[in-house]
């Protein structure tokens, strides 16, 4: 594949008489941390920016784009814990119904106006009304200015996930004038470490930024030049990195060996879990699934490590938990709870009253086809007869919740309370009617999580995690890694919950 110089291509190339166009940069010392690395950061992202307007933006791959232009009120550390950014500190009231935030006083929007409490309140109100950003503020009654550098978030009920969601990418602060003018989508104005250079950027192809002078947190953002290239195709991204056009990329694990040969830095961390989502734990839609033994049989029937090796190129961790591997809650010892054992699975099914198995309908979409052979084989051997209903992805997300069980790949959160909310208690497309309250084991543990605080809450979540595994709430096969490649002199810290981390996690060194 590498050695076919076509005569025709050579002829055209020669007549154009072009010179080298390498975008590579040589390593040089940086200021600040003392670490060394390139001055130019050229990121190959997986997707184009959804919108420069944070109320319309996604979290997944929009992180590097938006974090360049906007300061967040709250950021996250690498483990999903909220940390200060524009808000220097915050206090949660004893009744859990309000949060007071102190706003730093030395930040300025790129249009010259100061970042003050009025601007923050206006931004938050705008985000609450946003069709995508509103997810973080479902329990907010109002945002109020207390004084010039303090605001208060009034809640309608206790919300343990709001600070995490704000840090995840839902608290970018925008210029009030831009909000009023409705121009954020085209001309983003924030107070971030960089400013979008509209004159050299090409929508959908490359975005270039200029560094903000005298930025208050310059040490966190050491690169003097920043460009972000949305490149959907993994091979194209890889070629762009080989050619020197980019020096950080959202990578394909298939290129791992070549990345190592090139001497690139590699970072990997789990990002989502693959397996069977069970929406019915009471037997309302499918009587067998209401029985614990059946759900446990579905766990024993899958060899998660084999599925990970066959489908996920081995990039991940075989586990039966939805709390991220390596996090506080995930307990590796629990991964042996349902070690692959088809005989045991059949025995449990017979004990549950289904010695000859049972029939079930499941949806199928092209995006999940890669898991279909594994699922089909395991379920057939177990005695479960599946009727597959084929549909396109938009319809899958729409119709799958009507099925008692379906294959899915779900993104995970780095924050443990958010994981409980997203995976168990809140209404999601993959959890249309949360039925945890009908389970005698899970319900009291969820209540404990929702009432405890601090270490006691963490302990409650650990207990809940074990119970979810014991109750076979899902049939989790494995957690899959996101992989990132960086040129020499650049480091990237993956963050669970962000498909591509924000710029604060990319450093020299």
């Amino acid at each position, binding site marked *: 594949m590498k050695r076919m110089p*076509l005569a025709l291509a050579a002829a055209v190339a020669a007549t154009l008489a072009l010179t080298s166009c390498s975008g590579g940069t040589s390593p040089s010392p940086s200021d600040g941390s003392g670490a060394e690395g390139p001055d130019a950061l050229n990121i190959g992202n997986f997707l184009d920016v*959804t919108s420069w307007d944070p109320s319309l933006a996604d979290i997944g791959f929009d992180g590097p784009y938006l974090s360049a232009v906007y300061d967040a009120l709250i950021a996250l550390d690498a483990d999903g814990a909220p940390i200060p950014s524009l808000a220097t500190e915050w206090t949660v009231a004893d009744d859990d119904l309000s949060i007071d935030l102190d706003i730093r006083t030395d930040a300025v929007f790129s249009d010259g106006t100061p970042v003050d409490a009025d601007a923050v309140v206006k931004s938050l109100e705008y985000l609450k009304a946003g069709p995508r950003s509103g997810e973080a503020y479902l329990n907010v009654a109002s945002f109020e200015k207390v004084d010039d550098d303090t605001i208060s978030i009034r809640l309608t009920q206790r919300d343990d996930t709001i600070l995490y969601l704000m840090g995840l990418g839902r608290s970018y602060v925008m210029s009030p004038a831009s909000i009023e003018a409705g121009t954020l989508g085209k001309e983003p104005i924030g107070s971030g470490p960089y400013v979008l250079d509209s004159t050299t950027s090409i929508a959908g192809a490359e975005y270039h930024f200029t560094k903000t002078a005298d930025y208050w947190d310059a040490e966190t953002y050491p690169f003097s030049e920043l460009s972000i290239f949305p490149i959907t195709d993994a091979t*194209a991204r890889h070629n762009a990195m080989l050619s020197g056009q980019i020096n950080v990329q959202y990578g394909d694990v298939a290129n791992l060996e070549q990345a190592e040969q090139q001497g690139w830095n590699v970072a990997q961390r789990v990002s989502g879990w693959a397996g069977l989502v069970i929406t019915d734990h009471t037997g309302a839609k499918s009587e067998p699934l209401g029985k614990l033994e059946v759900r446990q049989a579905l766990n024993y029937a899958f060899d998660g490590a084999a599925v990970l090796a066959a489908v996920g190129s081995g990039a991940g961790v075989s586990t039966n938990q939805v709390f991220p591997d390596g996090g506080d809650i995930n307990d590796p010892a629990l991964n042996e709870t349902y070690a692959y054992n088809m005989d045991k699975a059949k025995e449990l099914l017979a004990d549950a009253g289904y010695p000859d198995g049972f029939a079930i309908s499941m949806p199928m979409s092209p995006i999940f086809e890669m898991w279909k052979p594994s699922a089909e084989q395991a379920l057939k051997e177990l005695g479960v007869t599946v009727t597959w209903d084929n549909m396109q992805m938009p319809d899958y997300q729409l119709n799958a919740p009507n099925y008692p069980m379906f294959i899915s790949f779900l993104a995970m959160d780095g924050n443990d309370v958010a994981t409980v909310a997203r995976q168990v208690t809140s209404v999601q497309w993959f959890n249309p009617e949360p039925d945890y309250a009908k389970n005698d084991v899970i319900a009291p543990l969820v209540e404990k999580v929702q009432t405890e605080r601090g270490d006691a809450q963490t302990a409650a979540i650990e207990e809940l995690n074990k119970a979810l595994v014991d109750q076979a709430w899902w049939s989790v096969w494995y957690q899959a890694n996101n992989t990132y490649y960086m040129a020499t002199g650049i480091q990237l810290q993956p963050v669970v919950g962000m498909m591509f981390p924000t710029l604060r996690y990319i450093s020299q060194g």
Partner: protein
Amino acid sequence: MLLFTAKRVLSGLVLLIAVSIGTFFLAHLAISDPTASLLGTTASPAQQAALAEKIGLDRPLLVQFWDWLSQAAQLDFGVSWRNFQPVSEQLAVKVPVTLSVVTFATLITAVIGVAFGMITGLRPGTWFDRGIKGISVVLFALPGFWVSLVLVMWLAVQLKWFPAVGYVPPTQSVDGWLRSITLPAISLALGGIVAVAEQLRNAVIAQSRQDWVRTLRSRGLSSARVNLHILRNASPAALTVIALMFVGLLSGAIVVEQIFSLPGLGQLTNQSSQNGDIPMLLGITVISIVFVVLINLLLDLVLGWINPKVRVA
């Protein structure tokens, strides 16, 4: 000629309206509720309902259609459901990218294809003819995406003569623009060159055997002038292939735009389909049909100019 042109324009308009209507209803039928894919996997049903109201999905389909049609008649295709920017503005950015690549590919095809077709057609059976035929078979068999990857690895990654990915508009740098579209255009052109050369070769051989060619030669006309006459008479077949190829490349650009990460119509179509962004898909459909109609009209006019008998068809 005027009546001929008017008939073609009218049939083009009918096609445009019919396909637009079909696309509107098919898109709504295929994507029954796009809010889930638009908002992503973490959206709550309440958020989906709010978005449905914001983009007008809660209205009857016929009302939605009438609104879209009346706006489209004024060249207003609404806003994207993904980022709420005007569809026409985004098309204005994407269309030149695809047109640049497709036009350059067509130009390469026409120049090289016609040259090869003429040379081999005028001297059939020579070593050059046989050699070109052999190369043609190989080129035609090579998958476009494979050729693209080879070109990238060789000319972009190893030699660094061209960028591996990306697009530079000519307004920013003509040199950069040429660099960014050359490899994608070559990838697209390879199959077409073979088709054009083959068509023209056969037509040139057929024309060369005609009595009028012998007559011209017997009158002492130079070979160059005779060959020009042969080319004019043999060109309709090649022109048709070139026109069809241009239309075909508009859709074929999807793969090439992916491989070279070009922000063109192909990439936009792909993203809009995945997101269920119906206004954007409708805008892309309309603009694509306009191109198809224009190219066919142009082809008809050129063929009519070359051969007046065509005008009465």
